[in-house]
């Protein structure tokens, strides 16, 4: 049975801590002396007081969380925190309604990077910073962070963390204690972000741009402080750096962690996904570059390669930056990119989608079925890196794929029924559920999501949330059996 009160108690602590996270953009605002300063003061106050009140009300009901409570906690954290995160936006931009603001903050926390705001270049720096900070926090995961810095989740922390971490097989603890694992992951993430900031600065960005873009690069989020995204810089060096760090963000952070600790490359070699991930991207980048050249989109191969590399990697890793309006490319290229974003990133990375490991398992399962027709008596295990994968994992992956496909279709249908054209609807469903960002047609890189009506915005918001939490965590909370005593 689920016990809502202990869950609310933990949630209240997280809300209080979240209020502290708003102090960072407040600092930025003070530093730049921008116009949004008053917004943070109020936002911090409201958030802090709400959290504290909730804590006071549920204090007497504290208890250690069970696995089931964990699902509820994760679901609540990911729906409630974005609501508080809207406060600075709502206060600073009075004409913004809650639906759009909530869409914006969900897009930030889920690292989707779709935006309803335009004129980003004219926004106060602190607002852009806040959007990127949210992406950075959501990238590695709020619960993971909570487990790392707050002891309150106790033993149940490992179970709860699993419901937030993407991937089909989450048994592997990297260290004996879950807190250490969470700390390790966040440390690696932070170190890489720092490295990204420094390199961005070194190749020509200003400090502010470097920080904001590093936050949304490593988290594979995709928010930029410029309407033209990376097109604003028009610098191959900056694009190359971004490509490199997007590639890093798309690999399992557990693997990064092991590589850091051993100071060797061997964990990457034994990672079952990293090889396929890099190969898939390399083939696609070259293929799309050749395709663009053959269709006379760009005059030289190098220009074609530059734009292909940046945009293909950006979309396939579910980041969503763009250096040019790829919607104007012949339709095959953007559709292929959309296809890639469904499954390219690795499990345990900051990316979204089905994940490479599930795709690999599905391909192997299909081959196994073929082989077993030819050799009915053969034992054909599905293997990853020489390890046998149990059938129950295969079934879980199959169920995931089914629900994933069902979700994409449902979202598409809802959007199409409410009046979007079918290409926009399909692409919005896919880029929403995979947490990518820009899609095709009306929601392409050169436009934004402001044209959606309220209903469509809510559908996309839900799509982003179920995508980030990999379906089950949210769906399980809305099944009646979950609440039954």
């Amino acid at each position: 049975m689920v016990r809502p009160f202990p869950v609310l108690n933990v949630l209240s602590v997280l809300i209080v801590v979240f209020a502290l996270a708003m102090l960072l953009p407040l600092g930025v605002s003070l530093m730049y002396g921008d116009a949004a300063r008053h917004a943070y003061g109020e936002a911090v106050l409201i958030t802090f007081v709400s959290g504290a009140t909730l804590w006071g009300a549920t204090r007497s009901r504290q208890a250690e969380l069970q696995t089931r409570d964990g699902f509820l906690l994760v679901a609540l954290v990911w729906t409630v925190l974005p609501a508080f995160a809207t406060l600075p936006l709502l206060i600073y931009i009075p004409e913004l309604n809650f639906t759009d603001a909530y869409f914006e903050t969900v897009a930030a926390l889920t690292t989707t990077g779709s935006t309803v705001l335009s004129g980003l270049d004219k926004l106060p720096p602190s607002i852009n910073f806040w959007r990127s900070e949210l992406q950075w926090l959501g990238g590695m995961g709020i619960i993971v962070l909570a487990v790392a810095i707050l002891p309150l989740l106790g033993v149940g922390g490992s179970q709860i963390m699993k419901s937030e971490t993407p991937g089909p097989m989450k048994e592997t603890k990297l260290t004996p204690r879950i807190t250490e694992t969470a700390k390790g992951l966040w440390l690696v993430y932070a170190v890489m972000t720092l490295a990204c900031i420094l390199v961005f600065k070194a190749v020509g960005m200003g400090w502010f741009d470097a920080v904001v873009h590093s936050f949304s690069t490593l988290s594979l989020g995709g928010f930029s402080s410029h309407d033209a995204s990376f097109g604003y810089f028009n610098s191959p060096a900056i694009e190359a750096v971004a490509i490199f760090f997007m590639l890093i963000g798309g690999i399992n952070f557990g693997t990064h962690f092991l590589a850091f600790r051993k100071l060797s490359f061997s964990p990457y070699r034994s990672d079952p996904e990293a090889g396929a991930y890099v190969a898939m991207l390399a083939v696609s980048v070259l293929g799309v570059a050749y395709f663009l050249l053959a269709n006379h989109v760009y005059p030289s191969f190098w220009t074609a390669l530059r734009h292909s590399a940046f945009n293909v990697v950006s979309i396939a890793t579910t980041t969503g930056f763009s250096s040019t309006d790829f919607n104007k490319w012949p339709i095959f290229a953007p559709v292929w990119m959309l296809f890639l974003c469904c499954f390219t990133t690795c499990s345990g990375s900051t990316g979204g989608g089905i994940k490479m490991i599930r795709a690999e398992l599905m391909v192997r399962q299909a081959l196994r079925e073929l082989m077993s027709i030819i050799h009915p008596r053969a034992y054909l295990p599905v293997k990853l890196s020489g390890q046998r994968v149990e059938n129950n994992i295969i079934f879980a992956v199959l169920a995931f794929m089914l629900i994933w496909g069902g979700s994409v279709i449902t979202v598409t249908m809802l959007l199409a029924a409410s009046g979007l054209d079918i290409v926009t609807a399909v692409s919005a469903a896919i880029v929403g559920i995979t947490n990518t960002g820009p899609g095709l047609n009306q929601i392409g890189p050169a436009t934004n999501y402001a044209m959606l009506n309220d209903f469509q915005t809510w559908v996309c918001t839900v799509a982003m949330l179920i995508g980030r939490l990999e379906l089950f965590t949210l769906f399980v909370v809305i099944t009646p059996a979950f609440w039954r005593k």
Partner: protein
Amino acid sequence: MKIVILGAGQVGSSVAESLVSEANDITVVDIDGTRLRNLQDRLDLRTVLGSAAHPSVLVEAGIEDCDMMIAVTQSDETNLVACKLAQQLFNVPTRIVRLRATDYLSNERVLGPDCFDVDLAICPEQILTDYIVKLVEFPEALQVLEFAHGKVSLVAVRAFQGGPLVGHPLKDLRKHIPSVDTRIAAIFRGDSPILPEGDTVVQAGDEVFCLAATEDIRQVMHELRRMDQAVKRVMIAGGGNIGLRLARAIERDYTVKIIEYDKRRCELLSTRLDRALVLQGDVTDEGLLEAENVSDMDLFVAVTNDDENNIMSCLLAKRMGARRVVALINRRSYVDLLHAGQIDIAISPAQATIGTLLAHVRRGHVTRVHSLRRGVAEALEAVVHGDRDSCRCVGRRIEEIDLPKGAAIAAIVRGDKVIMAHHDTVVQAEDHVIVFVTDKKLLPKVEKLFEVSVGFV
């Protein structure tokens, strides 16, 4: 020599049998009383019932004043513990241990002096696997043996009508393949050995043992029979230790199918093997063999634990069209019955594996012993030490060395060089000498030749 053997399984009893006949005092320890009784009925040795890893049992077996301990129980751990006890408590000078797990074998420090301190680790399954892998690589050969770290090979080939040398005297070999330095070490016609001379004529059906540098082996075999097509497809019946090792060793280079009856074992096999196809079923199930195209197999290897199963599945596979069948057969009488009949090669595990062990047991500096023709003949590799005064070989021409009739020095490996022995070749210190002995009874005399006299330090 006083020897304690721990474990009276297949390897233990074969070793005991070989060593008893060489005038040693043997004590065998096992936890199975029936096995010990069987052994004692057949052989002249003492037995002790009990766990081989218990100090009291070891003391009872006389470990305190024995010269050598051979631990060959089923359990690696028992063997290792016994070895450590023997070294630390009882100061046994020589300790030979049988190990199965590659984990122990692959780490040198585990077996080194500061850990378990094993003098010689043997893995019978690995030796057998190597043996069979050679047969896969050289499908024409009956047996392939390596000496001097693989530089020299000895192959047994059956001469067939159509080989260029068949029907001709041996001295013609030099005319046929002038570039290759080779030596015919022995010929067996029927069951009797012939020590080859220049004018010995090779007949069809002879079993010819030739020695050559490993890279020349194929050319030499070509003289004695037409070559078969290279092996591509292999079917292994039985997924036990040997089946698994064999499949792992060859799955990269050949198409391998492996049949195993036990479902749980099948799961393990399919996990450990990358490319080989694991099939669940009875190795004598005609339907399964048919469905998996046994008729297209270049080689069918039966390595289950059961002699009768191996024989029957091989006979079946042969009749259904497998090109060549190899069976693992434990019982000596079966081996003699079947070898070179309908079953192309019958391998006796005991004979194939104890060679290495025996090499260590024997005196002198014999580094390698291979049993040939099911143990009738032997080929051994010895390192020569000392000088003209302390050793009866060093500094002498081969014709001067007092070898018993029936034994011949076939080749000498000096550093990296392989020298085919001629009557005037001079043996030097530190040479590896490869000696071919057609009758096992001559062994003690041959070994004496390579001993260094007491004065030599």
